[in-house]
């Protein structure tokens, strides 16, 4: 009986290792993109993408089914700020749309810089404290496998990283426009 109970019960060390493996895998970039988000802290430096959180992402199709990468970024600060998300390296031509908490969509295909075909989205000023959702995929949306590095940070408005902001789009009916105005947006 004792032997059987020893066989069934894992040691404390085993359970710790198992928990660590589960946490590590769950907290990998893919899991973060799915579930949580990356908390961005206000950066006061002025070099391009300085202090940014850089992560590696990938999009994997299932056969001919295109499957974009989705990530979430928490952006909040006590002063006006901008959100800058830039793909700095890629092995496929990528495109990115970022959805603000209030539904405006900011899209970039070729953001320039050292990687001219990499997307770059700058939302300045970022209007609300909340979570921004980034969608990255092959530029034409066709099923393809690709990887990229994505830098993300928030900076005070006026910082060089906030220059050349991306235009946000959000088509609305006249009634919705009035509603947005009453809510203090746009």
């Amino acid at each position: 009986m004792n032997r059987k109970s020893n066989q069934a019960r894992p040691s404390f060390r085993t359970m710790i290792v198992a928990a660590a493996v589960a946490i590590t895998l769950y907290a990998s970039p893919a899991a973060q993109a799915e579930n949580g988000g990356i908390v961005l802290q206000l950066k006061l430096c002025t070099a391009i993408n300085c202090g940014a959180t850089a992560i590696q992402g990938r999009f994997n199709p299932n056969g001919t089914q295109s499957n974009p990468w989705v990530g979430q970024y928490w952006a909040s600060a006590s002063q006006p700020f901008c959100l800058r998300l830039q793909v700095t390296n890629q092995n496929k031509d990528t495109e990115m749309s970022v959805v603000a908490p209030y539904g405006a969509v900011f899209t970039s295909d070729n953001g320039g810089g050292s990687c001219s075909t990499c997307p770059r989205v700058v939302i300045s000023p970022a209007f609300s404290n909340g979570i921004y959702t980034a969608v990255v995929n092959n530029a034409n949306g066709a099923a393809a496998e690709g990887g990229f590095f994505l830098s993300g940070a928030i900076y005070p408005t006026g910082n060089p990283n906030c220059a050349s902001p991306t235009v946000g789009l959000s088509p609305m009916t006249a009634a919705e426009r009035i509603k947005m105005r009453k809510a203090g947006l746009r």
Partner: protein
Amino acid sequence: MEHLAKSGFGAWTYLLAAVLGSIASAGSALAHDSLGPTMGTVDRGGVNSFLGTSPVALSSPWVRKYFAEAGQCLAIDMFQVVPFADLELVVISPDPSIRYRDDDGSPSCGNCPRVKIDPAPITGYYTVIANHFAGSPVTSDFLVSVLRQAGGNAACTTPTPAF
């Protein structure tokens, strides 16, 4: 030694379970698949307001991916928002430059959103984002019905224009 050998077997079992569990949870957290060529389902979702690293409440949207084949109709209709909050839907197609948005288009309730994509431009996963229309931090649960049917289906009459 015997005990160690046996607990070693247990360790591998638990490690394997941890790996499989983590992979399964990461994979199923966002994407919704269906095996048939068409489908209809109802999902439960929620938007949240909570405190992050700052004392300001943050607005957290609900995000999910749904599959559609090129040419099909994909209709996403929100209803039963409890407690009521004025929510909107944004959908990003697999091509991130093709987007859809709706705020008050659903007949299900006064300010519920509905997005109808017809024809779906690309075969793949469509990213659906629901949140308060003004990005205000609110906490609310809701149901969404998701229909994937042949193009031209009645569920997709008057499709939402892409922008």
